[in-house]
């Protein structure tokens, strides 16, 4: 019978991915509520450092899987290795962090095992011995509680930022580090890798800006960006944007906030015409004060905003620019 919980630890070049510790918080919570033992699994080639770091946390064991074919991440090798590990250990749950790497292999892993994979969860609750997962649909606008009607192992990934890495409990003594043997000799790696690279050095470091005016899809067309620029200038703020604006090249890529752009926490973040899709929110939710201007009063951005104006940004932004200009001229 399946038992225990297995947490997938992501590492790159021997460096632990912090979001694995966030997923660990969820995994520790599920473990203590269900009475299951929590183990972690690390894949790679030189992973001793990551394994010891993880072993300092409150868990039962750290399973290491080392193979030349795992030196660089590929979906073929990861699916093959984890499939063997999961079949050997037969856990009830496999917990992952919903990173780009996990998104690249875990659905295949689940399919190759014939198991179900609940992606991008933001929470869970335990009912008896069953776990009900919370995940968001419609890009964060609606939450759902999801029940699994399938046999173990059940795979579940947690969204970055759902739990705080510093809440991962430390263990009283280091957990045992053990080696799981896998046989990857017959595994054919179909992906040929080139070196990773960054597009361009980021010209603008928005993380240091105290005031940020950010614009989203609600601005409708490139000509209207100027209106936002005038507001930013009046405030002495940096201008930033959500992904669609940079995709359209209405503002340069280095102005993008969110999971694929920069992460900021200014004193003031003014979100204009930004609905608050989770990919954007992860890059700005720790701002000290958040103001949202949006025509949809139920846009998720208002879930994290301190102040909100529901209305037409094309009326409100010019009024705001005028008011800031007026106040500044008076104040000086």
């Amino acid at each position, binding site marked *: 019978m399946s038992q225990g919980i297995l947490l997938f630890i992501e590492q790159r070049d021997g460096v632990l991915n912090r979001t694995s510790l966030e997923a660990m918080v969820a995994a520790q919570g599920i473990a203590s509520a269900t009475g299951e033992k929590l183990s972690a699994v690390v894949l790679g080639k030189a992973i001793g450092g990551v394994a010891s770091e993880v072993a300092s946390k409150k868990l039962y064991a750290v399973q290491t899987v080392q193979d030349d074919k795992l030196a660089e991440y590929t979906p073929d090798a990861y699916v093959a290795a984890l499939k063997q590990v999961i079949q050997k250990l037969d856990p009830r749950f496999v917990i992952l962090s919903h990173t780009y790497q996990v998104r690249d292999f875990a659905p*295949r892993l689940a399919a190759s095992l014939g198991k179900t994979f609940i992606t991008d969860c933001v929470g869970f609750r335990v009912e008896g011995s069953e776990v009900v997962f919370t995940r968001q649909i*419609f890009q964060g606008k609606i939450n759902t509680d999801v029940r699994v009607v399938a046999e173990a192992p059940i795979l579940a990934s947690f969204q970055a930022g759902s739990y705080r890495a510093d809440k991962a409990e430390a263990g009283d003594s280091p957990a045992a580090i053990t080696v799981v043997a896998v046989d990857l000799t017959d595994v054919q790696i179909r992906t040929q*890798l080139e070196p990773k690279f960054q597009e361009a050095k980021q010209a603008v470091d928005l993380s240091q800006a105290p005031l940020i005016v950010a614009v989203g899809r609600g601005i409708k067309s490139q000509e209207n960006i100027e209106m936002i620029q005038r507001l930013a200038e009046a405030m002495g703020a940096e201008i930033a944007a959500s992904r669609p604006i*940079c*995709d359209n090249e209405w503002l340069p890529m280095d102005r993008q906030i969110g999971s*694929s752009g920069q992460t900021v926490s200014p004193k003031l973040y003014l979100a204009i015409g930004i609905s608050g899709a989770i990919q954007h929110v992860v890059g700005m939710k720790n701002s000290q004060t958040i103001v949202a201007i949006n025509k949809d009063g139920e846009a*998720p951005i208002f879930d994290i905003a301190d102040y909100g104006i529901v209305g037409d940004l094309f009326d409100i932004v010019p009024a705001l620019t005028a*008011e800031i200009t007026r106040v500044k001229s008076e104040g000086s």
Partner: protein
Amino acid sequence: MNIVVCLKQVPKKDSILRIGADGKWIDERDISYEMSEADAYALEEALRQKEKHGGEVIVVTLGPERARQSIKEALAKGADRAIHLFDSVFDTATDSAAVARAISAALKDEKYDLIFTGLQSDDYGFAQVGLILAEHLALPSATIVMEVQPEDGAVRVKRELESGWFQWVRLPMPALLTIQSGINQLRYATLKGIMAAKKKEIREVKSADIGLTADDLQPHQVIERAYLPEKTKRTEFIEGKPAEAAAKLVEKLRFDARVI
């Protein structure tokens, strides 16, 4: 080069969503639908590849009757033909594994070099159908793709990693790619395209045609409750005419929040 594009129809992005009477999904009355955004980019990429390298673009959609509207839009933009998985049995397929199973069965006799899907849908956002499909069809895969360069028998793609990092990888064809939004500029259907689409084939596939029953497509994940997220902050909403609201907001920011 033949490219299959998996398309999903979803509620329009700016829809005001309310919880339905059963408390398990949205209220679908008064909702308008459109092609899921990332799928629209996947279609666009397929059309561009076809324009460069020749071949055929085949659209495959699982969905109710209304989904035909998105299929027609894809044909009007330049796809050559479509496969529509459509009957009440397919309605039971509400998780990725079930949808992927149905689509892989429907593609059994198709010849393709590439399959494109969006990286995730705008409704459920599972981000799984493409990869499960790849596993069933034994295809190599790459996700979150930003650029596609076919080479002799292979495809070189630029993948987006996290925090501004990228990586080119090369896969033998046939292969499955999940396409990132924003990879290209979407086209509009032309009048000529709309007229031409009327003659294009939309092949309807029933569950029985591909040997599937409702039992085969039972979801393993079931929504027991849908609800609006709890706010993590109490938002103070500022009302009034634009000038009035602007003045109130500036006052709050200066004297309460003290951030300007």
